């Protein structure tokens, strides 16, 4: 299913085979009829190095959040290692604001399968898993049907399209955890454990799933690969911005007229995205702020939104492109509540492994809950900022940073609103004194 009409402003590469409302997923026959698996045939005739080179040339960067160059990641795998190599697809899609991987899982499963088989060829992998969040059971079923078709067609299994190499692909269900989207926690979960992240190094390319060399990429990253192989890395790179190749799926949500998932070139201007693609702010209201790439990314104020949406430009502006979840807030948005809800999420999802994240998110949530309820004091505002700084860069994995960044950016950029909330409090609260550590 597609849940929103496409926009005429889109550059449809990844989504080019989809037609609104796409009532049924594209099956093998239809996929094959539209050049499906031709890229795989081409890749099977290429050397692994040539495939990786093409992906490197495409300047395809990871669509899961961190934007790491995919070709480079693949080249880190030691193909000569005697251990089996694995492919893991990150379909955990947990970042608030993000709902794009499902477009592929739900509608064009064979694209993902094709991308995986090509990647397997590139690193010499013999098995792969698609780790799909547990709530996406229907999409797991869709993927399973497509995988069964692919086995029937000899695309998966003992002899991939007669190439003499084996590749098995399975789905694996998650069971409710945002942290399992973090790649090393995901691998732990795949192995049947709690989603606690792993120490890095070693990175997955050296020791990943079941302690074997593994590449972990997002659904969209793998899904971009067939077109790159078909049309060449240079072609793909040229679609996007410098060092940010291709198109990507942007998920517009929040206060826009036409929320939806749209495929746009990397580097697309954010204001145009809101106004042209998203049909402008709902109810003719004014734009207040945008969370540009999922809840972890530092917020942009309206005046910062005339910006190219690519990894480097956003990084320069002090934010991140993240996972493509663009949350658009209009002038009526209550920023105190917004930050509180953000922190409630991170406190709920912290795995509890390390001190600063476990305790920091819980503490911040409590302060923000009070602030939101109008029971705050002015000291709280500096404290939110300071506590977030105490977490930032000091946690075991990036979830701590992901919680700290929105806190720091929102409290700094919208401080007046927080102050106003405290001033207008209905109840009088004396400023709490600091407490001696030992109460006798």
């Amino acid at each position: 299913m597609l849940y929103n009409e496409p926009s005429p402003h889109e550059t449809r590469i990844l989504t080019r085979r989809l037609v609104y409302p796409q009532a049924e997923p594209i099956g093998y026959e239809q996929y094959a009829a539209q050049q499906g698996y031709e890229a795989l045939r081409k890749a099977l005739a290429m050397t692994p190095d040539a495939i990786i080179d093409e992906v490197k040339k495409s300047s395809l960067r990871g669509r899961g959040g961190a934007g790491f160059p995919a070709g480079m990641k693949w080249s880190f795998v030691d193909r000569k290692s005697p251990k089996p190599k694995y492919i893991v697809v990150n379909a955990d899609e947990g970042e608030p604001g993000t709902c794009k991987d499902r477009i592929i899982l739900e509608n064009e499963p064979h694209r993902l399968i094709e991308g995986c088989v090509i990647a397997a060829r590139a690193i010499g992998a013999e098995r792969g898993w698609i780790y799909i969040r547990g709530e996406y059971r229907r999409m797991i079923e869709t993927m399973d049907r497509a995988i069964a078709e692919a086995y029937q067609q000899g695309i998966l299994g003992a002899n991939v399209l007669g190439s003499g190499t084996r590749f098995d692909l399975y789905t694996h269900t998650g069971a409710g955890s945002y942290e399992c989207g973090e790649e090393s926690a995901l691998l732990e979960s795949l192995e049947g454990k709690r989603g606690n992240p792993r120490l890095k190094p070693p990175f997955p390319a050296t020791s990943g799933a079941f302690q074997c060399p593994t590449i972990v990429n997002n659904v969209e990253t793998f899904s971009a690969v067939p077109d790159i192989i078909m049309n060449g890395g240079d072609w793909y790179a040229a679609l996007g911005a410098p060092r940010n190749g291709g198109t990507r799926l942007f998920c517009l949500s929040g206060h826009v007229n036409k929320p939806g998932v749209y495929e746009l070139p990397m580097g697309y201007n954010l204001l145009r995205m809101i106004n042209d693609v998203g049909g402008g702010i709902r109810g003719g209201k004014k734009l207040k702020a945008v969370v540009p790439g999922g809840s972890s990314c530092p917020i942009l104020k309206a005046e910062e939104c005339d910006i190219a949406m690519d990894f480097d430009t956003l990084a320069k502006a002090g934010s991140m492109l993240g996972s493509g979840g663009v949350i658009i807030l209009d002038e009526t948005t209550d920023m105190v509540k917004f930050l509180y809800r953000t922190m409630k999420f991170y406190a709920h999802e912290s795995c509890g492994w390390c001190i600063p994240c476990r305790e920091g998110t819980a503490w911040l949530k409590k302060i923000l809950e009070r602030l939101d309820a109008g029971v705050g004091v002015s000291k709280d505002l500096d404290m939110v900022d300071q506590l977030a700084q105490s977490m930032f860069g000091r946690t075991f994995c990036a979830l701590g940073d992901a919680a700290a960044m929105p806190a720091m950016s929102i409290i700094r950029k919208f401080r007046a609103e927080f102050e106003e909330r405290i001033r207008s409090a209905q109840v009088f609260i004396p400023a709490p004194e600091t407490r001696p550590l030992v109460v006798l």
Partner: protein
Amino acid sequence: MADLITLTIDGRKLKVPAGTLVIEAAKQAGIEIPAFCYYEGFSLQAACRMCLVEVEKMPKLQPSCTLPAADGMVVHTESPKVADARKGMLEFLLTNHPLDCPVCDKGGECELQDMVFRYGAGESRFTEIKYHQDEKQWSPLVYYDPARCILCYRCVRVCDEGLGVGALGLTYRGVAAEITPSHGDHLECDECGWCIDVCPVGALTSGTYRYQSRPWEMNHTGTICTHCADGCKTTLSVRNGAIIRANNRDRSGYNGEFLCVKGRFGYDFVHSGERLQSPMIRKNGKLEPVSWSEALAAVATKFSEIKARGGKFGVIGSTRTTNEENYYLQKFARQGLGTASVDHHRTGDVPALIDALSGKTDALAAMADLYQAKAALVIGADLAQQHPLIAYQLRANYRHHKMAAYLVNPGASREEQYAKKSVHAPPGKEMEAVASLAGELKGHEDLVVIFGASLRGEGVRQLVSFGDTLGIPVKYVCLVDYSNSRGAMDMGLVPELLPGYRSVREAGMEPGLALDEMLAAKDLDALWAVGANPLESAELASSAAFVVVQDLFLTETARRAEVVLPAQSAYEKNGTVTSVTGEVQKLKAGAKVMGTKADLEIMGLIAKEMGLNLGIWSPDKVFEEIRRTVRGYNIPLPVVATGGAAQTTPVNGRVPAMPRPEHIRPSGDTLFTSGTLGRYSKRLSSVMEAPGELFKG
């Protein structure tokens, strides 16, 4: 040897092997980096973030517990950024931690308290309501208070990696994350309590010690555990003469921090209400309390009389009394009473091994060898149940050095978790299985062989010949069951041998009766049992025998006695004991039980009463004599005196007269039983795993 690299920590240039963790490198230079989750010898967690340091050219602070030192690295451990991070971590930790140190069981020895004192802020900005979960009892011995837990995962790791039990895990997440026991609401494990010891805070507390004392209100005495033969060092914490805690937190012995349930909790027999506290004499068929002088006089008179008429004595010594006591006892028997019928409850064929190793130096393994050997062969022993420290050493060896373990056992044992190969063979068929391993064993650089009592006499000889064919250095451990079983043998508590494996014929005697023979002799005139309970499972044939028993409890043998003398346990006296690996360690008196005397003193007083001159009976003087006269015991005094373990070097030659192996009877004790003492330990029987089973995996 890894290459040395140079790094700078706090302005000091250090050379360390490449790959050394920065936290360890700093420690070598005397720079202490605080940490909760880093625990030497166990897997790395990087969870507590207390050890963050600033490294030049790295944008973020780095956890020094996982950061390998690299050439040219410049590290700052006290920069303002680092100090701020530490302060932040502690502030975070204290948010949900109760701030009630005055009533916390850990107060005064809490690592969190110490860290806050050194690195923390004086006040907390946390004014919210704390997240709280109530305390739980997991077993009679282990309590867990999630509110105090700082999630350092030490407990999880010692249980899983150290013991191979893996009874602890982590459940829930975020601020609700807590440690969970094996069965959701209760523990089924070895009940060793190590988790309690390593807990840096008051989260895990001991059912036996909690809320009884502050650490500084107790006297702490380092001594040796009296249960099995592994010889773990343990520190008894004593208040008003009563032991209220035992652990080895100072890692002073060769066991490091390790103790099993017996070492950590099984000292309660000492203060059992059933302890004998007054000498007793049988009057009108009933044992009646009498004074020490009356009891000693009665024994001396009777012994002198029997000796004078050339009567028949049987003397049985103990596997738990000290070397000094055993030495003195055999001297008393042979010189004082003129009898050659001296024996003890034998549990392994040590003389056969010493004899078979004749001519090979250095072939008896020390406890440290078990951690260093490249390969180990275990024959007929459920180590995790019977020899917890040996099991721990081997596992640590595997964990740290990938030692290859081979097992030949009648059934499953925990060592199978990591063993390279395990063959199940019934007793008597071991050597065939062992022979089948020859090819693989030869491939290792060296080997340590650990065998139980199913191999004896000829079997031991075959084993050593087999070892000789391997062409690699092989060391051996002959397993024996009680804390001073090895010492009893070394001190000549057998009919055939004098101390130091000399033939009794050297003393102009013929070997006397063995233990079973004494019991079976219808004409025995006197039986003297010092710390032994031979009548537990046998009858005394001679109804006229005058029986004298020195013991802690009114055992089966004591019940049959004419005179019962209340003795002291190893925890109440000084002296030395020799472990299963032949290492001599010092006992130090910790506890005190009114009315009792050490066996050595009792014997000395009887000798005095009898007018015998057997020398001064103070432990130090007797030990001096042992060092002078017993072969192999001329060990370096300072090592023992300072609490170390010194391995004896027994005869390197044939044993002139072999004690008969058919008198060996292994005790069959498990992790939760300990002969007579185990019976009087309520704690060992209080846990649901008790009494344990052998060879069940």
